[in-house]
């Protein structure tokens, strides 16, 4: 068989790819039939609940579970290793003891009877306050980078040279801005909390886990439980939100497995809502002080910043690599300080670090436009550079420029923009426009898929991937339907089990790229084998055969064809199985690519009396290479934008500086967007042939990056001064108005 040339059909000949197929799991989801991990109820199952530490920082002196064990219905009490006497607990909510019982009520009563003695320790949670963090010994240097066009002499000290050179560049600058910008920590707040329902079938562990990583979490269980990974099956058909926080079994998952082993019964352990807020993941905060200088045209030529970031008790903060964001001035110095606190440890949050980088730096660029009295649009455009000499990282300047033009048209930038703070007032209301640029990788992850073609014409695939809501199942079915010239309903997609061929975790917008690669490759290889069989019958070379409209046809001669079922019947008694793997490499794949760019614009109204911000319109223009499913791609962008509006205006983790307690770990106090908060949203997918021909690129994350900067810039345009830290709560808006008295 000749080597297969992997490819996508062109735009005009695509029958399925690029269409608006409705999602295949929609029926199950809209009828309540879809079973998430926390919907799995097994016969004889125990329900487990856990006690979390009330203290943000303490040592455990003793644990007495005697009374808990006496509660009717309580079957098992499990003290976690990290909670044994003498151990240090570093954040509030850390689970200490798990109680498994016949009912949830009994488990909760058991938890309430646990007696734990704590030795409280000094607490620090004020990550906003760098001086206090330094005083408390909670800071550490976390990298930095200096890049200057001029190089120091051989005998010159690099740091001293940088100081002098930066000063020289600032003196030379036509315009200089100094500013402070920030973005608070938020939580993932998945509506289905973290957790699992598990049972043992002899020595095999079956775990229904709420996970973004079906193929990788069996290893996680194996490592923790010290058993071979081939004794574990992780299952997950539906996930009620993950956003980067559900890649591991977590210690509570393995604890459930231990309890199930000890009791010989299935166990369900899901975090409570309060625990989900405290343990289920959060996005690091970031605060930045910067000085930037621009030439007379507004091109930023020098950047000097210090920022600090807190991932809570553990994990990485926002790195220097995203500072400034997208824009790449020729001279810069950037330094990072990490602040360690007694807040729960951060986890990856949709487009890790990019939303923060964007929010704390493209606001500074916007302030430069304000200083110069020019439109942010013009300043951003001037800083793009050209494709031959880019002033930006990620997507090409020409892509950003084209997207800016589209976005500006959709939001009517020219007619609605006014110089910062100079718009018309309507009573207490002022309005403004702001924009931002973003980029993301989104290259497909490693993925293996087995395609099975049955002699009766049935087609199914097996892939250890998962569908976190982005539409993986639908995308896989569309790829195979296109490949075999069949309808989407004719394809059965099997996923959501670690027993299937390995596929990567759904993080980094890598899933659609990965699974479309593996499915297309396996599909094209399987089709080639079918065509070889049919070639002899039709007397046409296999290379001249195509699959279309339920038939295998000679290209250009429709009379020479056989029905798909007839072709498959030639397999005899045995189905055909083909397995293909996609491994990302430096070599460009013909099916997928990496790096996208997007432009977002916001139009807001600010009530200067109440400090309330109202979204009027938000425009998102997004490049994503080749679009598999237009309907689902749109959903991803809408969703990301709305999530972005939430963290720009509402979401905020509030910790009590005295006790370290997470004060709003409750849906009634942790504000998220509601239907009335989002205004009009316009989504435009940028898919010219130049970008489509690059192949598939992931989309889940890029559109969530820009709303912070775009909305902050719009508010600044409305008021004429910056509300420096996101979320832009009414309190912060009013404080900024007070600090800029007379300017609003």
């Amino acid at each position, binding site marked *: 068989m000749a080597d297969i040339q992997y490819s996508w059909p062109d735009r005009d000949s695509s029958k399925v790819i690029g269409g608006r197929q409705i999602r295949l799991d929609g029926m199950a989801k*809209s009828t*309540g039939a879809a079973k998430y991990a926390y*919907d799995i109820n097994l016969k004889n199952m125990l329900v487990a609940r856990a006690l979390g530490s009330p203290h943000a920082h303490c040592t455990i002196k003793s644990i007495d579970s005697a009374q808990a064990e006496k509660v009717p219905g309580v079957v098992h009490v499990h003290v976690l290793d990290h909670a044994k006497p003498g151990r240090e607990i570093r954040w509030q909510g850390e689970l200490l003891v798990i109680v498994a019982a016949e009912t949830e*009520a009994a488990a909760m009563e058991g938890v309430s009877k646990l007696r734990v003695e704590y030795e409280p320790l000094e607490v620090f949670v004020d990550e906003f306050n760098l001086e206090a963090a330094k005083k408390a010994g909670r800071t550490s240097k976390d990298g930095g980078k200096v890049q200057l066009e001029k190089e120091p002499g051989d005998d010159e000290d690099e740091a001293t040279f940088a100081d002098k050179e930066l000063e020289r560049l600032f003196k030379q600058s036509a315009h200089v801005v100094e500013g402070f910008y920030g973005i608070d920590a938020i939580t993932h707040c998945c509506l289905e909390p973290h957790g699992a329902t598990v049972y043992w079938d002899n020595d095999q562990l079956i775990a229904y886990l709420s996970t973004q990583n079906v193929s990788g979490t069996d290893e996680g269980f194996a490592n923790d439980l010290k058993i071979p990974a081939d004794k574990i099956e992780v299952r997950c058909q539906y996930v*009620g939100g993950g956003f980067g926080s559900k890649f591991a079994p977590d210690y509570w998952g393995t604890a459930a497995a231990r309890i199930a082993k000890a009791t010989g019964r299935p166990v369900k352990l899901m975090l409570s809502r309060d625990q989900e807020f405290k343990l289920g993941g959060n996005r690091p905060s970031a605060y930045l002080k910067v000085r930037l200088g621009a030439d007379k045209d507004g091109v930023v030529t020098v950047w000097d910043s210090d920022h600090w970031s807190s991932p809570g008790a553990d994990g990485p903060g926002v790195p220097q690599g995203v500072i400034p964001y997208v824009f790449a001035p020729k001279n810069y110095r950037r330094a990072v300080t990490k602040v360690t606190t007694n807040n729960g440890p951060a986890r990856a949050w949709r487009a890790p670090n990019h939303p923060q980088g964007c929010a704390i730096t493209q606001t500074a660029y916007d302030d430069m436009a304000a200083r110069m009295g020019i439109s942010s649009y013009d300043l951003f455009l001037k800083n793009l550079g050209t494709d031959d000499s880019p002033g930006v990282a990620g997507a090409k300047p020409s892509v950003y420029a084209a997207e800016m033009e589209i976005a500006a048209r959709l939001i009517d930038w020219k007619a609605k923009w006014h110089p910062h703070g100079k718009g018309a007032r309507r009573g207490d209301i002022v309005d403004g426009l702001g924009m931002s640029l973003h980029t993301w990788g989104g290259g497909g992850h490693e993925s293996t898929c087995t395609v099975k073609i049955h002699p009766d014409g049935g087609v199914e695939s097996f892939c250890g991937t998962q569908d976190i809501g*982005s539409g993986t199942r639908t995308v896989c079915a569309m790829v195979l339907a296109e490949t075999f010239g069949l309808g989407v309903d004719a394809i059965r997609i099997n996923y959501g089990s670690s027993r299937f061929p390995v596929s990567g975790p759904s993080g980094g917008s890598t899933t659609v790229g990965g699974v479309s690669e593996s499915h297309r490759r396996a599909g094209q290889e399987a089709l080639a084998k079918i065509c070889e069989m049919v070639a002899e019958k039709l007397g046409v070379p296999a290379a001249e055969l195509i699959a279309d409209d339920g038939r295998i046809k000679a290209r250009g001669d429709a009379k020479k064809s056989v029905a798909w079922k007839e072709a498959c019947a030639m397999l005899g008694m045995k189905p055909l199985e083909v397995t293909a793997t996609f491994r990302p490499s430096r070599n460009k794949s013909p099916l997928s690519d990496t790096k996208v760019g997007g432009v977002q614009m916001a139009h807001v109204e600010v009530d200067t009396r109440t400090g309330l911000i109202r979204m009027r319109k938000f425009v998102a223009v997004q490049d994503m290479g080749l679009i598999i499913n237009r309907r689902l791609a749109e959903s991803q962008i809408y969703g990301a934008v709305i999530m972005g509006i939430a963290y720009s205006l509402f979401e905020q983790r509030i910790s009590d500086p005295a006790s370290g307690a997470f004060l709003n770990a409750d*849906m009634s106090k942790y504000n998220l967007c509601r239907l009335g908060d989002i205004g009009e949203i316009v989504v435009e997918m940028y898919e010219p042939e130049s970008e489509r021909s690059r192949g598939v690129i992931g989309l889940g994350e890029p559109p969530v990056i820009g709303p912070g900067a775009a909305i902050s810039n719009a508010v600044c345009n409305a008021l004429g001064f910056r509300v420096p830290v996101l979320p832009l709560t009414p309190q912060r808006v009013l404080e900024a108005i007070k600090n800029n008295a007379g300017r609003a």
Partner: protein
Amino acid sequence: MSRKRVVSATINGDLVEFLCEPRQTLLEVLRNVLELTGAKEGCSNGNCGACTVLMNGRPVVSCLVLAMEAEGAEIRTIEGVACGSHLDEVQQAFLQGAALQCGICTPGFIMQTEALLAENPQPSEDEIRFYLAGNLCRCTGYDKIVRAVQSAAAQRQQASHSTQATR
């Protein structure tokens, strides 16, 4: 632990008797006793709307209703909306309009929409946003949800006009 009581209620058209403790919520009984897991537990304090069901035609967050309060009531859950594989207009509009992603909030939104359209068959966009403001979507599909509700309302109106015209 208090003694369990027997509660009788009509659930999705069927008369059902179940045993529950006085402290158990309707949500807990639906999910853990009756295996109706379509209503989801998002927050347990009435702030996310994921557990919305209809009780005597009114939408309630079932995490804040005691199971014993369901005595004699008519309860409708997401499992009782479709007729076999035939989706009703609201479900169909959510599906067609891509108004769902991870889907965990979808049953709650659909039940709240059923209540809205029963009360107000032609809601304005503002009325939709107001009536559904108690339901949270984290993914988030709000824009498409509003469009789906508008589409479902239009479909129902059209169906109702067709029925009247054929009479």
